[in-house]
């Protein structure tokens, strides 16, 4: 169980992460490695960096300020060695063009609460609230539960977006009492295929889903399937998913999500200039 997450985005005014207008908090780190992931920067639990070469002025300011000397800039090549980074953020702050972005930041609890409460008027106007997303937010049950509890005390509804790969008992105890809605990904029914495309078996995921639908009927459970061409959108897979959902009384809530290819560019940005063997060439 991870304790303190890195948060890699707080996105306001969203309509597709539960009911109404919502703020989504993206927690970094995921036990799955879906080949199609559109948030590849969310996979690792550690700091990542994204470098947008089109914005980089090659001024070298980032290299000059890094206290650990992790950024190499020799006038020809520019790269960052993130393995030893402690996330101080000085490099991104110094970058005038906004080319270098640090992915993941620790938020003191009070600062996070303040950010999440900012859009209260919009939540109230739309039955909206806060959605924990990721990565896999339920890798951090203690943290999510703590924040969701405080939100609930403020009268703000919280939801969770999950891949289903979590420790049920922990989540049951720490998170479920404080949330109203779980948006639950059911991606692939075939176990081997699931391992092939996500890196893990779906056994735990399906098991957790069954328990959630039976034991926590007061929580709105919305199963969702991303339609990835040739992988999840096959006739057989969708039929199997529907059967599984029908068995658990959740077929009518099923939502299909269109696939978008935003992950490809992000993967490029995550690598270029950051892997030593993939520097920015000047």
């Amino acid at each position, binding site marked *: 169980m991870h304790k303190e997450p890195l948060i890699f985005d707080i996105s*306001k005014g969203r309509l597709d992460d539960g009911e109404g*207008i919502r703020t989504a908090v993206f927690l970094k780190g995921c036990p799955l490695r879906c080949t199609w992931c559109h948030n590849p920067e969310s996979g690792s639990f550690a700091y990542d960096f994204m470098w947008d070469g089109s914005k980089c*002025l090659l001024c070298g300011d980032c290299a000059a300020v890094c206290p650990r000397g992790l950024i190499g800039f020799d006038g020809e090549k520019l790269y960052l060695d993130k393995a030893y980074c402690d996330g101080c953020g000085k490099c991104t702050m110094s970058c*005038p*063009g906004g080319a270098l972005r640090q992915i993941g930041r620790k938020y003191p609890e009070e600062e996070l609460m303040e950010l999440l409460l*900012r859009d209260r*008027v*919009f939540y109230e*106007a739309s039955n909206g609230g806060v959605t924990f997303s990721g990565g896999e937010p339920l890798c951090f049950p203690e943290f999510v539960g703590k924040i969701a509890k405080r939100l609930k005390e403020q009268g703000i509804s919280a939801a969770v977006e999950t891949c289903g790969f979590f420790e049920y008992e922990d989540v049951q105890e720490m998170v479920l009492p404080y949330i109203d809605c779980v948006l639950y990904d059911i991606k692939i029914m075939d176990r081997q295929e699931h391992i092939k495309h996500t890196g893990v078996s779906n056994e735990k995921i399906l098991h957790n889903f069954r328990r959630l639908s039976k034991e926590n009927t007061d929580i709105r459970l919305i199963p969702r399937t991303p339609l990835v061409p040739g992988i999840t959108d096959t006739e057989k897979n969708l039929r199997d998913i529907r059967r599984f959902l029908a068995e658990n009384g959740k077929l009518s809530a099923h939502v299909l999500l269109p696939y978008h290819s935003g992950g490809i560019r992000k993967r490029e940005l995550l690598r270029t200039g950051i892997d030593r063997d993939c520097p920015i060439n000047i």
Partner: protein
Amino acid sequence: MGEVTLKDIRLEEYGLEELDGIRELRDGMLREPVHICTERAWYITEYMKEHGEEEMEEHPVLYRARAVARYLGNKKAVIPDGNLLAGTTGAYLKSAPVYPEFIGLTIWSELETISGRKKNPQLLTKEDAERLNFDIYPYWIDRDVLASTKKKHGNIMPIRLLEKMIFYVSSKAGCISHTVPDFKRVLAQGAEAIIREAEEKAEGSIREEKEFYQAVATVLKGLLKYAENLSEEARRLAGEEKDEKRREQLLEMAKVCRAVPANPASGFREAVNCIWLCLIGIHAENINMAISPGRLDQVLYPYYKKDMEEGTLTVKEAMELIACLWIKTGDNVDLVPQVSEELFGGAGTAPAVTVGGVDEEGKDAVNDLTYLMLRVTELLKMREPNMNARYYPGRNTIEYRNRVSEVIASTKAVPAFYNDIENIKTLVNQGTLEEHARDYAVIGCVELASAGRSYDASSSIIMNLTAAFEMALYNGKRYITGEEQFGPKTGEPEKMENFEQFLEAFKTQTAWLIDQAVDLNEKMAKIHQKMLPTPLLSALFEGPMEKGKDLVFGGAVYNSSGATHVGFADVADSLNAVKKAVFEEHYCTFGELIDAVRHNFENQDKLLAYVKNKPLKYGTAEETENGISREIIRFLYETYQGYTNYRGGKYRPAYWTMTNHSGQGKITYALPNGRKANLPFASGITPVSEAAADLTECFRSVGALNSLYIPGGEALNIKFTNIASREEAALLGSFIEGYFKSGGQQVQFNIMSHEMLRDAKAHPEKYPDLLVRVSGYSAYFNDLNDTMKDELITRTEYDIHGGRMVPDYV
């Protein structure tokens, strides 16, 4: 109290095809070329020449009444198309009337070219050109408002600043207008009753008062003569008409024009006709700029209700009449010389109609007619009238809110949304009685007025805030005017020790510029009082008939003057940039920053990237908390409120820009926020393009400015890629609810993507009538100049699902 009895508030069964002849009228009006009309100028000038200036000097109000009545009595009765309403603003189906008292002379050098110019030509016949050249313009050359002001005061600094065109626009040289008349009295009593009242009051009073009442009677008689002429023309046409249906319409028209505005309106048809005829009358007297019909769903409702109850009117007939009025409000445009065309082209006259909101008692005022008007607006998708929907969260229904959102989604642009809670509060804070504040309507673009009671001259000053900022940067000079000293010497910024010193310099320059603009406005107002009293408009207003005083002398119940601001967001961001770069982070010296600005950031990519990315940006939560935007708003409010105008009212700051943010931007050099030379400024109260990445933060930042300090009104432009369904429209409604609860006053939308607008610019033929919101009013995209088109294209575009701006990859 509003009543909604409609089964379907969307009125889906009434499409354009179901309304008789409306599609033809609409298309006809859209395709009709603009004709410059000299008829009014001819009659007014003729009267002036005959009667000389002595009469004007001694009896200004009466003199004006006689001149306008002369025109109205002789005005050609034109019933040009199948519209159910008789009469036209000018002598053509679509006219650009010449008002030589104001800026009518600006086309003098273009008489031979204006008909043939490429962009938005205005057709001028040879005969009309000769009339202007030989009979009309020579008379006015030293007599129009500006010339008269110069004659009296010489070429003083405020006039020099005006004529530079890069500091402020003092609208009094070109108009007053900008007002919402009161139609309730003339509808209920008829003009003859007002004439009788005026004549009786004239009997019992002396001097100016007596003259004012005589003037009211005189000018209204002129209007009745015009209605009579229309009636006769309709009868004549009916005699010639072969189509039976049209003959009947013409005979009905003849009857109606005999009945109103002379007598009380007996029903909906007469009421709509009465309002149209009064609007023609007002335009005979006052220039066609933002004469706003006001709360027509409220004013017309008793007549609609009565007819519906008596079974003498159907929903379809009511919608046809509304459509006819909507189309008619676009029967005139402003006369636009080439230079204005380049800077400000594409503007309509912004006749604002306001629907919804609460009534004088504070109760939900939405009624069936509100929905009829929304449906007609949705079907016509036209520039005129400028449609505005009031919304009182908690008092108006969610169904109404969402219905307005649907109309926005379907027209892609209108109506604009107004927050009753904030707007009523700000008017009450200006001394308006609560019940009068609740009865507010929008003037022109976005300005607020207690309808028919408050004379606000809301476009008195259009101030370029970046002019003051630049003068702070260059010690009282402007970049493009070189060594010429305008403002006070507030010191060399290079020698300033802290940000507060620079902020003080900016405030000093701003206060100085405001003082110049106010001084000029007051001086021109005195000229207006001599030359341009408004007895006809005064008769259609609350106050003048009671006080015996024309509007320009302070006759209205409430008075104010409006001053709007161009470049607010760019100035806020520039001040934030100076603070961060020079004084907080010491990223560069003030000298280096000014040097980069002077060279338009050439070879300064790094500094440019820094000022664009690092300083606080208006439109974000951090800026609201720690930035300068709220302080500027407060400073301007306090400065303006320190002035009392010639009618006894206060000056009210506002933030709408029409196309001025594009026009003024085109002639303003680079700024420290990274805006490069000659590019448009952000519009109205809207954050700089791409500065506010999060939609809800943008809304909250604008809401946090405090509407009490924005009594003149504001225009916030928000662009969405798409709103495709009713569900999404309802969610748009939720965003608006949240924005209004954050304190926002107004918001208007464009539902269109970067790509679509680029396509429209490249292939205008594919988008013949594309309606867009500019800043406070609508325009047809194809009428706009390229600078303005580019401004629209590069505006921040939000994806309604993600709540964030969509990057513009071109």
